């Protein structure tokens, strides 16, 4: 018997068995208590509440929403707003992070130091504090609509948000929008073709001027083909507020600023360490082969730097998405604010609502890590 207990395999099985028993007992215990507590407090269970009327308004919604809509609709509005703020934040943080990361490596002493100061400063301040600062100190302290700051009489900023002109959705507008997509597709195809030709014949082909040309020419063509009828609606002061054009609320702006500025510091660090990780010998080897500065950057340094920098950057995208939940502190109506906040207060079914909210984030995380695995697999150094 004792000998059996000393057997590693037996011990392993026994240990796992005990763990499972302990875990199941614990889950059973809290499950029982929860059921008892829910009954005693008269909380409803199940997902029927999703079809119940919400009864509260949401001031920013990408899909049509009224007070008579259901909590299920609130969930979708919140989810879409989360995705919108995450998308905007990711695009802006990537741009800013790239610039700061490259400036940190600049040979210009002053610029490199300034970029470093930016990183050291903003990443050591809690995101929530930055968010509250932008919202309370900067944006909410803007003047009232009557005294708003105007730029070229087209952009207005005041304590109700940022107003800017927007083209009407007519044929010309959609033609121009479509022309950008066509130009993008054509540039990608051209790039593919030039890479293939280079592999086969060794001849270079300057893709960039052609691509730029397409991006300029196609929209112009589309403008005339679409009837040359592009109408902008301008924001204008009517009574106490602006009408027309598009408005970005102070909540949205504060969240965008805070997420962008905070996440950009981490992206900048990823960019810098990616480029620094490429050993100096690689650059020297490229130079000794006779490659120009641009060629060595494009063909030798960047491909290796990207492989190192992209995984941490994608992780930052995930962090940014999760951090967008801080919106609840300023009241931007994303999923935590409206669904896990307002809906939860009305319905009181905490378990279902918080689980649904968590599942949304879990689903996003799983999607992102699947993307990351795919990337790592694709970028793996192919050794013989």
């Amino acid at each position, binding site marked *: 018997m004792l000998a059996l207990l000393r057997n590693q395999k037996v011990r392993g099985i026994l240990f*796992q068995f005990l763990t499972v028993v302990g875990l199941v007992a614990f889950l059973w215990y809290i499950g029982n208590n929860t059921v008892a507590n829910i009954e005693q407090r008269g909380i409803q269970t199940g997902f029927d509440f999703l079809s119940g009327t919400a009864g509260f308004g949401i001031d920013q919604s990408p899909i049509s929403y009224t007070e008579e809509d259901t909590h299920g609709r609130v969930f979708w509005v919140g989810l879409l707003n989360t995705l919108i703020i995450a998308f905007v934040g990711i695009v802006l943080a990537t741009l800013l992070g790239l610039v700061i990361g490259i400036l940190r490596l600049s040979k210009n002493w002053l610029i490199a130091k300034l970029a470093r100061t930016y990183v050291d400063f903003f990443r050591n301040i809690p995101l929530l504090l930055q968010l509250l600062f932008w919202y309370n100190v900067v944006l909410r302290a803007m003047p009232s609509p009557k005294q708003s700051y105007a730029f070229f009489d087209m952009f207005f900023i005041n304590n109700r948000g940022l107003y800017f002109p927007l083209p009407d959705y007519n044929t010309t507008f959609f033609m121009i929008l479509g022309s950008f997509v066509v130009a993008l597709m054509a540039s990608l195809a051209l790039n593919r073709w030039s890479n293939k030709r280079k592999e086969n014949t060794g001849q270079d082909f300057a893709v960039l001027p052609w691509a730029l040309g397409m991006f300029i020419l196609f929209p112009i063509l589309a403008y005339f083909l679409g009837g040359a009828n592009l109408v902008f609606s301008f924001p204008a002061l009517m009574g106490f507020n602006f009408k027309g054009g598009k408005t970005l609320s102070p909540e949205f702006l504060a969240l965008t600023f805070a997420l962008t500025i905070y996440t950009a510091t981490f992206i900048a660090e990823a960019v810098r360490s990616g480029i620094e990780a490429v050993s100096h010998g690689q650059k020297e080897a490229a130079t000794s082969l006779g490659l120009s500065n641009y060629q060595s950057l494009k063909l030798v340094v960047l491909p290796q730097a990207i492989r190192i920098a992209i995984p941490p950057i994608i992780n930052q995208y995930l962090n940014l998405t999760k951090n967008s939940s801080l919106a609840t502190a300023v009241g931007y109506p994303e999923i935590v604010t409206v669904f*896990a906040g307002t809906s939860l207060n009305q319905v009181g079914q905490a378990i279902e609502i918080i689980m649904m909210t968590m599942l949304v984030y879990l689903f996003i995380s799983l999607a992102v890590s699947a993307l990351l695995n795919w990337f790592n697999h694709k970028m793996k150094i192919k050794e013989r």
Partner: protein
Amino acid sequence: MAVYSKVEQRRAPSNTKGILHWLRDNLFSTPLNVALTALGIAILFWVIPPFVKWAYTDANFAGSTREDCSGGGACWVFVRMKIDMFMYGFYPSAERWRINTVYGFFFIMMVLFKYLKSASLKILLAHVYFIVGYFLVSGGFFGLEHVPTDKWGGLMLTIVVAAVGIVAAFPLGVILALGRASHLPIIRSISVTYIEFIRGVPLITILFMSSIILPLFFPEGVTFDKLLRALIGIAMFEAAYIAENIRGGLQSIPKGQYEAADAIGLSYWQKMGLVILPQALKVAIPNLVGVSIALFQDTTLVMIIGLFDLLAMVRLSAADSYWLGYETEGYVFVTFIFWFFCYSMSNFSQKLEKRFNTNLR
């Protein structure tokens, strides 16, 4: 016979040394660099003089009332008058010496750590410190007045949440990391599920869960106070991140170490405790400091579930009708405190990284 005379050493050409050369090399080497330098100087001029003017030249430091702030700049009088609120929250003022004593003990402990050699003595001391600290701050014993946790607040609460969060999460994190590296399939999958679940959701949802759902899990009569619920949520959250960093350390230990420990007949816990973990933790320490910095910043989130940490205290004080309109000063003050703590921690971790780097290779 040739006569050699000593030739005076020539000075280096003036364009390869000195401040002018440095300037030319680092700031004005190309037209682009000249433009960038100009831009940099413009940014500095745009940011620094107005800030100095606001925060120092035009600012008011002395006085005790709103009327003393007449300079047009920052009103540091507000921060000065409210500093006790920022530091201690609603903790009764007569009892604040207890918190200061706990701070004092911390420095005494740090000094002792410098001279103590035995690791187990250090660990014992740290435990004693936490227990003594808890009894001193909470009170209710030895004639000390009991101070309930809803009176705790300000920087002191921030430190309590951060310190207890890390200390409580650490053992759980080590166990989860070992579980994830284990060969037992059930143990491994339980650990992986826990870690990936927690890392996939924002801290806010975990805090909501621990403050709203957790009370439902326990029978009627068992109550947790708000602070304890937040601490449970934070410790659960942090454990997953600590586990991932320790796993990184575990992976960096060569297989030979495991085999050598097995070969001399150590049991699993001996192998891990005496051979693997000491090395793995050493590798993981810089990253663990990084986790601590992130946690210290994340403590501000407890504001959302209604605890009054430093940031929440500042918001509350700025909403005081007498001091209305001075929240900028409050935010700048909090920014300074958080920045100071986080920056010194990250400098510390960079130093550690350098120190540990040498003896690994």
